[in-house]
């Protein structure tokens, strides 16, 4: 990197591309007389600008955490949230009758899976599960674990949830696992944007504005469960 400067001097001063090394002693020195501002003004200006930029970015990020989309303040907004139709168990005791996500025909088929998954979450006891349901729930849990792992924004998620057996916290319903799950979900705030049908052609916008149903139910279920602790 050091001879860059030598070469730049060559290119700045000569029109022919004679490639030889030159040092600054060979050329006329830069005159420092008659400087209006301080010598290091560019240096100081650069570092001040950089510091302002970093601090500004931090404040913008913290501001983003405080404000959100305005419609979330509306207490009725819960009804606009997407719920699976015919949900088996609702731990808070109210049934939702409409959801946009599930009105699409290509999502019909996965509804039974979600009903199963949700009811499994809501039960406190072990349930007899068919193998394929286990594997698909396992898949979801793996993705949750992975997204939890990659999410360094919530590092304590890794400590509490993202271990070598991520599935145990979500599939096996032993009490200790539920406790760990409570800790997991209470800190986990970056949800997975789960596309309900892997082959669907939902556009990007649909994914962005529909929160994950699994995590909603989980947080709901575990809010009910964890609050009792």
């Amino acid at each position, binding site marked *: 990197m050091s001879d860059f*400067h030598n070469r730049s001097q060559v290119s700045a001063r000569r029109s022919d591309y004679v490639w030889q090394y030159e*040092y*600054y*002693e060979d050329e006329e020195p830069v005159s420092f007389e008659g400087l209006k501002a301080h*010598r290091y003004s560019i240096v100081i200006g650069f570092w001040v600008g950089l510091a302002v930029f970093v601090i500004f970015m931090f404040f913008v990020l913290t501001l983003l955490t405080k404000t959100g989309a305005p419609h*979330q303040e509306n207490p009725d907004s819960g009804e606009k949230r997407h719920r699976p139709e015919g949900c088996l168990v609702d731990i808070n005791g109210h049934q939702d009758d409409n959801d946009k996500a599930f009105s699409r025909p290509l999502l019909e088929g996965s509804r039974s899976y979600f009903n199963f998954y949700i009811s499994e979450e809501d039960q406190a006891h072990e349930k007899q599960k068919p193998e394929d349901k286990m594997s698909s729930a396992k898949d979801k849990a793996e993705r949750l674990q992975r997204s939890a792992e990659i999410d360094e*924004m919530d590092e304590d998620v890794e400590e509490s949830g993202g271990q070598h057996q991520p599935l145990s916290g979500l599939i096996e319903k032993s009490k200790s696992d539920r406790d760990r799950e409570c800790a997991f979900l209470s800190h986990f705030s970056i949800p997975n944007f789960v596309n309900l049908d892997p082959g669907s052609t939902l556009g990007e916008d649909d994914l962005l504005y529909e929160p994950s149903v699994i995590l909603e139910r989980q947080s709901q279920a575990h809010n009910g469960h964890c609050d009792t602790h």
Partner: protein
Amino acid sequence: LSPISSLPSSTHTSCPEVKVPFPVFFTVGIVSLAENLLVVVAVMRSRNLHSPMYCFMCSLAAFNTIASVTKTWENLMIVLADAGHLERRGPPETDLDDVMDSLLCMSFVGSISSFLAIAVDRYITIFHALRYHNIMTMQRTAAILGLIWTLCAVLAVLMVKFFNFKFIMICFIVFFVVSLAAICFLYVYMFMMARIHAKNIAALPGGGRDKSQHQRRWGSNMRGALTLTILFGAFVVCWAPFFVHLVIITVCPMNPYCECYRSLFELHVVLMMSHALIDPAIYAFRMAELRHTFRKMLFCSDWKFCL
């Protein structure tokens, strides 16, 4: 080989070149080499870590390793040349100088590409979660990494051979700015969407009414903002001074103010090297799986059974 020589002592009030003592260079170089080599070895040897995300981190660590090795080697040569054992302008030394400059360029372009790849990978993981395994297969990861490495090698050779053309320098700078903007955008977008949806979940009829939960969420949000600031701030603080240096030698080689900026060249190089030092702390050591592998590697008594 030689760094910027200081301006001749004369009646002019000049900006003396700031020299960084060699032990600082060596320490930074060797520590960053050790850290990054550890990451590379851990990812390569452990079966758990053969996933796209860890491959990109391994590539980043490999580029940082190359940068550390090259810089340390160059410093060694400078020490030897100062001591008189090496000829500064002899042909083998200039060739070696070219090789080292190429390697440094390569590692520089490579680290930036790796950052970009990591950001895109995280973006896909969050926003296309169900299709992630189809989008980011190991074959595609290998292809992407191969592309990055060949691109960096080619660019490095071109950069050093044709450095006289200002066009190359401008390309370099544009590449840096574009990558910076892309990485910034990706992370801020992920962050924004995550916060919005965290609020969505909290706005559910069952959720969010608990005050302690609200405070916990606020705490984790602050931590998220801090992490992102550190990630991005470290990148900008460590790389930008050197880049502004490149801009300055392109734009105003003879201006006295620019001259004073250029006199801090060695400090800027130390900053760049220290980014290779803190990269593992920001990216790799935050993954629980990787930390677990390290513990197994370093503290396991029987190597054969550990990995």
